[in-house]
């Protein structure tokens, strides 16, 4: 057992935690957080693989590291879009739910939308 392998196992557990939260938590913002925990677990798993590729005086393989930086930035952008969608949903009806049955039936259809 060494450091990278330990964090690899930790990452596997984080992905499981995030997945459970994504399915079970009814609040959409909590689902976004759960999704981000899955994401960070995937990043950490990838980081473990990058660390194992340490060679020629580098602490890790630089290619996955660059992809990780790209991934973190993209994850942030996607989270921002998701939160904005959620806030717009809240502005529309004052409720935030992904439950179809509980959703308000009298959806305000704007004729100009078509």
């Amino acid at each position: 057992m060494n450091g990278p392998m330990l964090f690899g196992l930790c990452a596997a557990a984080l992905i499981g935690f995030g997945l459970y939260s994504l399915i079970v938590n009814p609040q959409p913002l909590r689902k976004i957080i759960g999704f981000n925990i899955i994401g960070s677990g995937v990043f950490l798993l990838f980081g473990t693989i990058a660390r194992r590729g340490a060679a020629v005086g580098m602490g890790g393989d630089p290619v996955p590291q660059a992809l990780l930086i790209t991934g973190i930035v993209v994850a942030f952008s996607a989270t921002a879009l998701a939160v904005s969608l959620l806030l717009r949903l809240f502005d529309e009806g004052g409720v935030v739910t992904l439950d179809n049955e509980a959703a308000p039936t009298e959806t305000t259809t704007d004729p100009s939308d078509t």
Partner: protein
Amino acid sequence: MTLALAVDIGLAMLILAMAGWTIAVRDTFASVIGFVTYGLLLTLVWVRLAMPDVALTEAAMGGGLTGALLIGGAARLRRTEAAVRTERPGMLTRTLAAVLSATVTAALAICVLNLPDPAPTLAPDAAAKLGSTGVGNPVTAVLLAYRSMDTLLEAIVVLLALFGVWSLAHDRFWGGCPQLRTHADSEGILAYFARILPPIGIIVGVYIFWIGADFPGGKFQGATILAAMWLLVIGAGLAYFPPISQAWLRILLVAGPLVFMVIGFAGIVTAGAVFAYPIGFAKPLILAIEIALMPTLVLALALLVAGAPQRMPPQ
């Protein structure tokens, strides 16, 4: 067991506990705070994995900007908490979800334990050509020379996300100003910090951007710090977001990817391939791309946190 491994085990336990708490805690606001703490702990893991570039990005983005974004969202959605809580799924769904999650974790753990040895690595290849790029940080070399197409597409993804956020504005606010919902006291401690911190933060941000060519750092990390400084000043009520219809704003937002594309495609003529740099000009061209991308990233990241426009500019 060495001391380093003991530290790693402690850190892994702390992270798992923090993630568990973030998921289990009742209050969404508390969950968001848990997630920010979790992001900072993750930063320590990146340091332990000898990846300072990723650690800086995680601290700035994962903990910082994402945290600001989620706190804003949680504050606005607070009133819906009680209603949503009643939708908690039944025992069967929860058991199935737990079984599924445990299976995924177990499968991944088996993969981790059976990773190939010796591990495949591109580090020797990255090191071999490092001299020709003119930059000393191999991660920066990957981002802006070896795989610069990825970085261009990433900058475009950030912009697309911003357009997506803007397009969620109400019709009557289109072209208006985004707004941070804060209740800042103009004489309070936040306003005080918003005056004291930005000069320091701007120097730190520009330094991290500049040093990224040869040492850990880079434009994403630097841009995030600068964006955070802008958000701090706006959050304290000392400044306002510009209307998104402003021409200068839109020009700066597309300038970065545009310069990147022009330099990239000019490579067909000057160096014989797309995103190739002519010999001897790699460093100046990389620098030009980074400098052009910087304002784009600062503005786009801050405006992503700000969300859709919510009021029209005062006439």
